[in-house]
């Protein structure tokens, strides 16, 4: 009664892994041998050598091979004729070895298990045995075959579920990043921390005795350089903003002297008591 069911599931056994999906469809060639589609499974062990290799390589392991044999020979998974199954299994192992297919140790281990079960079945069963002794030696094998069979079918079912990207597409509409380009923000605190980091690294604090006033001199130095950016001589007096108050005038004067000291500007006076002119050194070098 199991035979019909087994038969209907056979084809996927012989398919290369990547074609499992197609294997489910009727009339899709199981394989191509010399360009000819192979539509039906070989009925017995006589299989064209190329196809055989294909068949043998696609077994997922000894359990898979055993299930195949059970179905192929209409054996009952719950009442396995061990002698017959072991004979079939061993003949496959021989063929695999003959074709120098890589035989995983798992296959040989299973062969040992089969022979062991077979031999235990030959022993007369004790009439009144304990539960353990009385258990069918095939029980464990049956349990494993059924469990594997179930997962094999589950794998097929999973693969049949519609899958994102394969059987349906996910909607994803663009959000343009250009809509708002975010620039990093910097705070005074960031600058303070950056400086702190510098100090910690270089121990600059040992050498720099920078006073608050000096920062305004520095700022004024940059300001003067900006004023001179045209490259033309600018009258000395024009660099001073008379209305900004005495402290600022002093700072400006110190800034001009510092700039001259650092060779950033050139100061010229063509005649005694004549007008003093200032220009950037860059203008000088450009000449």
């Amino acid at each position, binding site marked *: *009664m*199991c035979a019909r*069911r087994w038969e209907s599931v056979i084809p*996927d056994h012989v398919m290369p*892994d*990547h074609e*499992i*999906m197609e294997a489910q469809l009727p009339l899709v060639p199981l394989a191509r041998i010399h360009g000819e589609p192979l539509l039906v499974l070989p009925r017995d062990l006589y299989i064209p050598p190329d196809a055989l290799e294909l068949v043998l390589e*696609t077994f*997922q*392991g*000894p*359990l*898979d091979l055993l299930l195949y044999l059970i179905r192929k020979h209409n054996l009952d*998974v*719950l*009442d396995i004729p061990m002698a017959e199954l072991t004979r079939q299994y061993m003949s496959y192992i021989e063929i695999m070895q003959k074709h120098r297919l890589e035989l*995983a140790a*798992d296959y040989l281990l*299973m062969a040992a298990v089969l022979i062991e079960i077979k031999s235990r079945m030959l022993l007369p069963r004790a009439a009144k045995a304990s539960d353990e002794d009385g258990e069918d030696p095939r029980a464990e094998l049956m349990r*494993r075959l*059924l*469990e*594997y*069979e*179930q*997962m*094999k*079918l*589950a*794998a*097929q*079912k*999973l*693969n049949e*579920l*519609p*899958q*994102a*990207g*394969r*059987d*349906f*597409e*996910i*909607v*994803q*509409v*663009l*959000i343009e990043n250009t*809509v*708002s*380009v*975010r*620039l990093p*923000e910097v705070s005074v605190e960031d600058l303070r921390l950056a400086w702190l980091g510098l100090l910690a690294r270089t121990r600059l604090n040992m050498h720099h005795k920078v006073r608050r006033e000096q920062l305004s001199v520095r700022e004024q130095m940059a300001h003067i350089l900006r004023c001179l950016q045209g490259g033309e001589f600018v009258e000395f007096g024009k660099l001073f903003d008379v209305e900004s108050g005495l402290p600022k005038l002093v700072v400006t004067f110190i800034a001009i002297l510092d700039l001259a000291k650092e060779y950033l500007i050139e100061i010229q006076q063509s005649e005694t008591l004549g007008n003093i002119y200032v220009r950037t050194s860059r203008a000088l070098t450009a000449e």
Partner: protein
Amino acid sequence: MSAQVEPLPPSEIIIFPMRDEPLDTLGDALDTQPLKRIIEAALLTASEPLSIAELKKLSDVPLDHRQIETLLEELTVDWQGRGVELTRVANGWRFRARPEMQPYLDRLNPQKPPRYSRAVLETLAIIAYHQPVTRGDIEEIRGVAVSAQILKTLEARGWVEIVGTRDTPGKPELFATTKQLLDDLNLRALQELPSLQEIGALLEQDIAVAE
């Protein structure tokens, strides 16, 4: 100085009830239409499914679970008869093209995600139905060694993850499936996978007959 875009009040984006509309037609109920459009835009642009908790963040006023769900149900209806539908999956809600659209969409994008070998699929099935399992458990069921590559393939796809170790010698890692797997299969929960009873019904029958 910053290029930040000020959030426009929703009323400026979407048609709002007219000013001269009698107030009582609005009643106490919030006008949720602008929010519905915002939720729609969020779901259309999201790269992952959005949960109701996330969707709540889109509202300027606090809304409860039920109100968001009502809007999602309305959206589902709005999209009926279109090529795209709003669906609920494990991680929340998302829009997807209906599977019937696939043959057409395939014409534009012939690239397909990888098809997995039987070894990978069987490993996935064992993890899905027996989780959490160790590599040893999987090998026991399949009857063969499971290569590290197979598990890596499933992990890389985001379908399987390590959820812990078993407290036995060697502390083997325990594998389980992810919500991502359910999302990719458009499912809400593991229970929506084909049931083992369904798959195993015939096998059990066998056992019953044999006994």
